[in-house]
């Protein structure tokens, strides 16, 4: 088994001087070691955030296990060091290294980033730079390392095109191995980078940005996107057809230190039947597919036994939409309670929050409960197609209060399309109704009082949603609405918090940006922006300067109404849901008309045509 002893020696000299050194050294149980001589293709899997965040991410664990199953491929983990560590590395000329071999990642064949949120873009550049790899793709001429990206953000990867060689659009299980096989071949044949990219572009789901030209209209919008042969005109998202038998990791790398979610995680379903109009995940992960109850049970058992975790969580966009949810919970709790394992269930919907589900989750632990009505009035919830009613929220609150909970958190968005001041007042009214629900419980504990936290975020229009045409509300408008709610909210049992506008604005700009935004990202990074998702490092002034210096307006990207006819910067990417559907849904939103979920009725979103009639075949 191989380990870079030279690097270990260098690290030993200073690791004790940084915070929590164990996150920089690897060697955790479950991590995979190989003999370098037996390995033909090496992959550095980078999560552009800290170890604690990245190690909690399920996608990384899936692809790590999947690639390492192939004897002559070696996938290793890489995270962004915090400033104390980074400074020491730079002082000593230690390049970014992978946690298994401790080898510098610049010597790997692939450096792959999972791109989960827009605010990690500068961190990607910082990691490449720390690795000693030129951040601009045009300055990298050798076959390796190939810099690639995947994850939800790459459905509009345009702002990142200057930096990446290719993107993997959609589900990565098959694509990643195909790319590694191609690399194995190209290395043997002595192919050039251009030859590799040309072949890669022909793999379904692979987007090679250098093989597409973009032209712009005078008003700054995109005029045309042209593919260069043999790249396809449209890059079609990759989907795993047989989800029940897709690879599921049998083991996790279990960190020494505590991380954000330190537990086993089992994926129960992919996609979502709901179609909430603001929610990108609800569209880009279609079609809806679920595992069999028994598959989930077996995977839970295997994972808990192999990792030694005493907590397991189910992962999905909406766990309560699992067709056999009650059967699943019964099956799982029979196993977990016998083995001293906690079962946690994020992502439950209030309209499916039954007493039965409640019993199963509260048997384990009484943490706070969070519901997400998203909007304060039925009118606005209809606009966004969040098909839940006030009575659903109240009946869930009732069950929770009767079960002994006293505090409930409610999530809302500000700045949704068509929002009026009445909708803002409705947020308070709903919170107040939840408080009243507590006092209507005759068996409530005397001397206890309920509390409701209202958490307000700013609506961010995302590509591949019916709201991709919508302007983001201006700062003045959001501030006015925040003020309004604090004025109407007079109940001391309700407290209100909101997220920073600047952060949401930047996220909106990056989410719907075009290729020109890459220059601003580069400049912001040059000015020192990194880890923008962290309050303590976020520096909006630098971002503003960066946009000004390259003559770009943030408002153009974030706050402009886009017409249905405009060519979107991402129009050459096919996420299986059709543009026509989004236009239709946008019109229905403005008319206040809801759309039924996929289980009730197919709304012809386009997925069926794209994957050959297999969509949702088990739904009805």
């Amino acid at each position, binding site marked *: 088994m191989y380990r870079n002893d030279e690097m270990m020696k260098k690290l030993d*000299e200073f690791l*004790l001087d940084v915070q929590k050194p164990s996150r920089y050294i690897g060697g955790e149980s479950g*991590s995979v070691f190989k003999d370098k001589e037996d390995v033909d293709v090496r992959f550095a899997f980078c999560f552009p955030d800290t170890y604690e965040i990245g190690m909690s991410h399920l996608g990384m664990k899936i692809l790590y296990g999947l690639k390492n199953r192939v004897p002559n491929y070696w996938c290793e983990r890489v995270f962004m060091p915090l400033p104390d560590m980074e400074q020491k590395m730079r002082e000593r000329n230690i390049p970014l290294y992978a946690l298994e071999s401790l080898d510098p990642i610049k010597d790997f064949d692939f450096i792959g980033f999972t791109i989960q949120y827009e605010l990690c873009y500068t961190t990607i550049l910082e990691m490449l730079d720390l690795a000693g790899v030129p951040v601009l793709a045009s300055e990298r001429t050798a076959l390796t390392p190939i810099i690639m990206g995947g994850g939800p953000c790459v459905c509009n990867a345009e702002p990142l095109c200057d930096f990446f060689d290719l993107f993997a659009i959609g589900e990565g299980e098959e694509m990643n191995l195909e790319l590694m096989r191609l690399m194995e071949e190209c290395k043997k044949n002595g192919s050039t980078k251009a030859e590799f990219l040309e072949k890669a572009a022909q793999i379904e789901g692979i987007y090679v940005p250098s093989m597409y030209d973009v032209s712009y209209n005078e008003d700054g919008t995109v005029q045309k996107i042209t593919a260069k042969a043999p790249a396809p005109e449209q890059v079609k998202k990759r989907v795993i057809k047989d989800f029940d038998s897709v690879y599921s990791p049998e083991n996790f790398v*279990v960190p020494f230190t505590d991380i954000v979610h330190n537990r086993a995680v089992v994926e129960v379903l992919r996609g979502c039947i709901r179609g909430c109009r603001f929610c990108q995940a609800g569209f880009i992960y279609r079609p809806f597919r679920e595992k069999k109850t028994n598959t989930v049970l077996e995977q839970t058992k295997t994972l808990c036994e192999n990792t030694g975790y005493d907590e397991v969580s189910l992962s999905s966009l909406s766990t309560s939409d699992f067709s056999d949810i009650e059967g699943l919970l019964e099956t799982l709790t029979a196993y977990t309670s016998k083995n001293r394992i906690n079962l946690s269930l994020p992502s439950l919907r209030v309209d499916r929050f039954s007493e039965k589900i409640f019993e199963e989750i509260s048997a384990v632990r009484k943490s706070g409960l969070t519901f997400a009505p998203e909007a304060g009035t039925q009118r606005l919830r209809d606009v966004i197609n969040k098909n839940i009613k006030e009575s659903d929220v109240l009946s869930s609150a009732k069950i929770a209060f009767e079960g002994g909970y006293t505090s409930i958190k409610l999530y809302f968005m500000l700045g949704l399309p068509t929002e009026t001041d009445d909708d803002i007042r409705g947020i308070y009214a709903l919170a107040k109704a939840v408080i009243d629900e507590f006092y209507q419980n005759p068996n409530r504990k005397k001397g206890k009082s309920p509390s409701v936290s209202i958490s307000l975020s700013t609506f961010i229009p995302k590509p591949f949603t019916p709201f991709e045409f919508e302007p983001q509300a201006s700062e003045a408008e959001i501030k006015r609405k925040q003020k309004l709610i604090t004025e109407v909210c007079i109940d001391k049992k309700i407290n209100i918090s909101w997220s920073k506008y600047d952060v949401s604005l930047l996220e909106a700009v990056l989410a719907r940006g075009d290729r020109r935004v890459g220059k601003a990202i580069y400049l912001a990074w040059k000015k020192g922006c990194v880890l923008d998702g962290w309050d303590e490092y976020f520096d909006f002034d630098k971002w503003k300067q960066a946009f000004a210096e390259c003559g770009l307006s943030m408002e153009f990207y974030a706050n402009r109404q886009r017409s249905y006819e405009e060519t979107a910067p991402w129009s050459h990417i096919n996420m299986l849901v059709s543009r026509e559907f989004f236009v239709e849904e946008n019109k229905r939103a403005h008319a206040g008309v809801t759309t039924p979920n996929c289980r009730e009725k197919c709304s012809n979103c386009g997925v069926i045509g794209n994957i050959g009639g297999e969509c949702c075949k088990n739904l009805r």
Partner: protein
Amino acid sequence: MPNVNTRVFFSKTDRAKYISHLDLYRVFQRAIIKSKLPVWYTEGFNPHLYIQFMLPLSLGQEGLREAADFRLTEEISPDEVTERLNAALPLDLRIIETAVPVMKNTDIVEAEYEIEAELSREKFVEFVQSEKILVEKRTKKGVSEIDLKPNIKKLEIGDKITIRLPAGNEFNLNPALLFEAYEKFSGEKIPRLKITRTRIFAGNGEDFR
């Protein structure tokens, strides 16, 4: 149900030296669960797996024969315990031996360390010949000044430095203190210092068992 006191002797080297004492409990707990050894949980409202480490090791120091106790609820051969735990532990934590505890952790009085340090040998010899070696010892109660000199039970300066110091819950001296004091004395900065605890002793000069 039988309640079998079990003591494992283990090494904590290489990458594992960066596992903090707090995290070490978690790592062992998971390994025990993975190994499916029948272990005893504390009773009460919130039962947890009982593991006791004999002598905490400072972060960054290696240990060749550390000790931890837990209880089994079935008789299992020591070799099997060793084997099953080794299959479950991270690579750089290795069980060397499993045994029935002979001594109590309060019997520990001294420990021996082997140190690799890049420093001027002559200067170091001069330093340890000083009449007093005053160091600042930080404890929960605050900082106190201690003379290391009378507490050094054994000192050999060769390619490596071997030193024996008081150890245990009552009075424990970290060998790193000696090198902090040396840096002050010499004005040198030691670029690389590798400290390995090689042995733990009980009162009568016997190895802790």
